[in-house]
């Protein structure tokens, strides 16, 4: 028998198909207004370049990857994706408040592992994802979602390989989650 999920312990989420429809509409609107899709990893890249510029400007200028984004009359943080990503944070905050998920600082993990293990995995995962996103020219939002929606070959490739890899290797890390 199906247990009603809306008891006090289980968080309330909107219907995923509704979320998907609204997200699809958002992609359409975004492309219609800006000519580009959504994104997320680009903001972190801007943060890296900005930090490097602030601490060691000469080094940032001479770095062949970062130098593409340095210089000019305004900070690398003054770009579309940074403001959009700020918005993602605030949108998440708004939703969290509305649905009662804004709580004290916590770590989410399987009960089978320690907090330390989870944080090490999160850090490692982030580092890998950061590296991968540069080769991939985007992450799941920019490359996979927006890229596929606009029929980009690269976008579809990223989507298939990213999730395909996830499926192929998930069994190795099952203990982190359940």
């Amino acid at each position, binding site marked *: 028998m199906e247990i009603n999920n809306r008891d006090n312990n289980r968080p309330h989420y909107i219907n995923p198909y509704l979320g998907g429809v609204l997200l699809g509409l*958002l992609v359409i609107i975004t492309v219609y207004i800006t000519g580009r899709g959504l994104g997320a990893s680009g903001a972190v890249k801007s943060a890296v370049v900005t930090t490097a510029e602030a601490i060691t400007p000469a080094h940032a200028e001479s770095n062949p990857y970062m130098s593409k984004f340095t210089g000019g009359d305004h900070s690398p943080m003054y770009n579309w994706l940074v403001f959009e990503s*700020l918005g993602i944070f605030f949108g998440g905050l708004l939703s969290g408040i509305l649905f009662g998920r804004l709580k004290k600082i916590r770590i989410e993990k399987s009960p089978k592992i320690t907090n330390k293990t989870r944080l090490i995995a999160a850090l490692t995962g982030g580092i890998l994802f950061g590296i991968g996103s540069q080769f991939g020219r985007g992450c799941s939002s920019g490359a996979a979602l927006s890229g596929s929606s606009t029929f980009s070959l690269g976008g579809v490739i990223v989507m298939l390989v990213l999730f395909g890899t996830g499926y192929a290797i998930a069994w190795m890390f099952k203990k982190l989650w359940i």
Partner: protein
Amino acid sequence: MGPLIPNGVITGDWDFVIALIIGIIFGFLLESSGFSSSRNIVGVFYGYNFVVLRVFFTAVIVAMVGLLYFDYFGWLDLDKIFILPTYLTPMIVGSVIMGFGFVLGGFCPGTSYTAIAIGKLDALVFTVGLFIGIFIFSETFPLFQDFYYSGYLGNVTLTDVTGIPAAWFAFAFTIIALASFWITMVIEKRVRKNITEYKF
């Protein structure tokens, strides 16, 4: 006639306000769908929670069909929009690495921002990892610079490469999505029989 900003219908000064608003809506949709929880996200790989697949596939088919209709009605010039460029080999390699990062970290950049917003420390650590990873990439860039630019096919669409009109891809993707919705519903029911907690 869209796209509005590149066509000058909306001036560039509004750029960042629009970016912020779009981001807020994006973040709200992600969080309210359950993407602020790493255990919800990775559920797609273990079969106990397919929210990622449902939201993602629905969004793609809605966007694909919507963009085609916008083009058909003459509201949007699909030739003027940004198409993510294809660098075949580095993108495949990058996606494999991202796949590992996804399963280990339980997040991707966008979802980690929403999770930070509601207090998830593991999301914050993940984002710090993103920062470090991109920094490492930048510093070691000269070692694989040629590889990074290899396999360049241009800003090609599926139609450019196959000659098949975009509408057929939208159609095929819709069928695949609908089939996967049904199959994953069956899988989810079966997997959830054996565990007590599956929505976080």
